[in-house]
């Protein structure tokens, strides 16, 4: 027979456990903490003068491709990923041939050319609205990243708009939320802030404008960090395999639900795509699963694509204003990826 005293004691223990959990969350996920400021510069001065890319003569906005779904080889899923935290890419009902796109913004200078389009797929409860920024730069140094409050640390947060303003960004998107974790490689603008890896795939942007995505097992830190790494993000998963939708994503079923998404795509050296999928707003946009996001990225002619922090964090800012409609007005985040108006003179 369960008596009252037993229930009271168990309840008391529950409350203590709850307080412990609250203290844990407060310490690890809320209290701002400055990180180790002993960063290592990875790029040498000579290398910063290296690659220059050409801008396209004229932007062909009507360019389209066959919308048949390209999928990775079943016999060789992903990058040989054997991680148990992975899901098989499902066949989604996404019909990209019905896409309605509207050009929102265009910008061209001597060093950067970008086009932002709003894309709508489907209708009713299944409608997906996403924004694509198609960017060409003459120098990789124009693709920059910034920390909240300008400082590397944990739980330091600002809105995307604030960070974009602080850094004079032409276009900015939410980053990989490095500040939510204590582990994961962080290379920003050629500076190594954190070198350990975790279970997540790593996206590396090199100074020559190329991008590569590694599984933690493939990531040979010593060798890769010697190759003029300009940026490295630690979130994922990787969505494409040489332009084809991957058959396996290194994520969990919970994270694979229809959600707002943010991704960076690589179409060639000097040519990048930011894709922002809005979500959790029935009738406007339901959000995207990883498979749907991968299909969108493949449709955007990306060779590689990498998922960044989604949900409420997903935001795209152009000239100081939100392009998309972040869930509940968005939230403060730890970092952004952005393009400067003019080439950095550093």
């Amino acid at each position, binding site marked *: 027979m369960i008596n009252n005293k037993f229930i009271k*004691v*168990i309840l008391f*223990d*529950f409350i*203590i*456990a709850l307080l*412990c*959990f609250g203290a*844990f969350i407060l*310490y*690890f*996920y809320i209290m701002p903490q400055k990180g180790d400021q002993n960063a290592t510069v990875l790029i040498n001065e000579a290398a910063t003068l290296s690659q220059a890319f050409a801008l396209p003569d004229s932007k062909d906005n009507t360019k389209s491709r066959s919308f048949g779904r390209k999928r990775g080889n079943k016999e060789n899923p992903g990058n040989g990923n054997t991680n148990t*935290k992975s899901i098989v890419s499902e066949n989604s009902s996404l019909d990209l041939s019905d896409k309605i796109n509207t050009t929102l913004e265009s910008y061209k200078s001597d060093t950067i050319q970008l086009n932002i389009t709003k894309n709508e797929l489907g209708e009713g409860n299944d409608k997906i609205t996403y924004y694509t920024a198609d960017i060409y730069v003459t120098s990789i140094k124009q693709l920059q990243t910034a920390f909240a409050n300008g400082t590397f640390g944990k739980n330091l947060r600002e809105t995307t708009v604030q960070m974009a303003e602080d850094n004079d960004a032409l276009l900015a998107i939410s980053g990989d*939320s490095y500040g*939510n*974790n*204590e*582990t994961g490689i962080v290379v920003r603008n050629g500076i190594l802030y954190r070198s350990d890896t*975790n*279970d*997540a795939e790593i996206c590396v942007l090199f100074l020559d404008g190329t991008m590569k995505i590694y599984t933690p097992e493939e990531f040979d830190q010593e060798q890769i960090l010697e190759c003029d790494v300009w940026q490295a993000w630690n*979130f994922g998963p990787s969505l494409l395999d040489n332009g084809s939708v991957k058959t396996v994503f290194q994520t*969990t079923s*919970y*994270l694979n639900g229809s959600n707002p998404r943010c991704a960076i795509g690589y179409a060639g050296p000097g040519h990048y795509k930011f894709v922002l999928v809005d979500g959790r707003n029935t009738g406007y946009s339901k959000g995207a699963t990883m498979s749907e996001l991968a299909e969108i990225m493949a449709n955007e002619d990306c060779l590689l694509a990498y998922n960044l922090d989604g949900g409420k964090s997903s935001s795209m800012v152009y000239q100081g204003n939100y392009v998309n409609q972040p869930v509940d007005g968005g939230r403060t985040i730890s970092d952004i990826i952005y393009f400067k108006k003019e080439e950095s003179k550093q």
Partner: protein
Amino acid sequence: MKEWYVNLWSHLTFILSLFIATLWVLNLLNPMMNFLNNWIADSAIFLLCISSLITSAISIWRRYR
């Protein structure tokens, strides 16, 4: 052995188990947040082992004394 001393270890085991189980479930849902890959979770798991050892040792000792 004083009763409060025995009780303390069983309560500690209960609280730590609840705490770690919560972290484990959250980490399963969202591994990107690294709920288990930090020094507090590591310490809690170690402390749980110690308290479990002591609680079970007391329980076994009581049975055979």
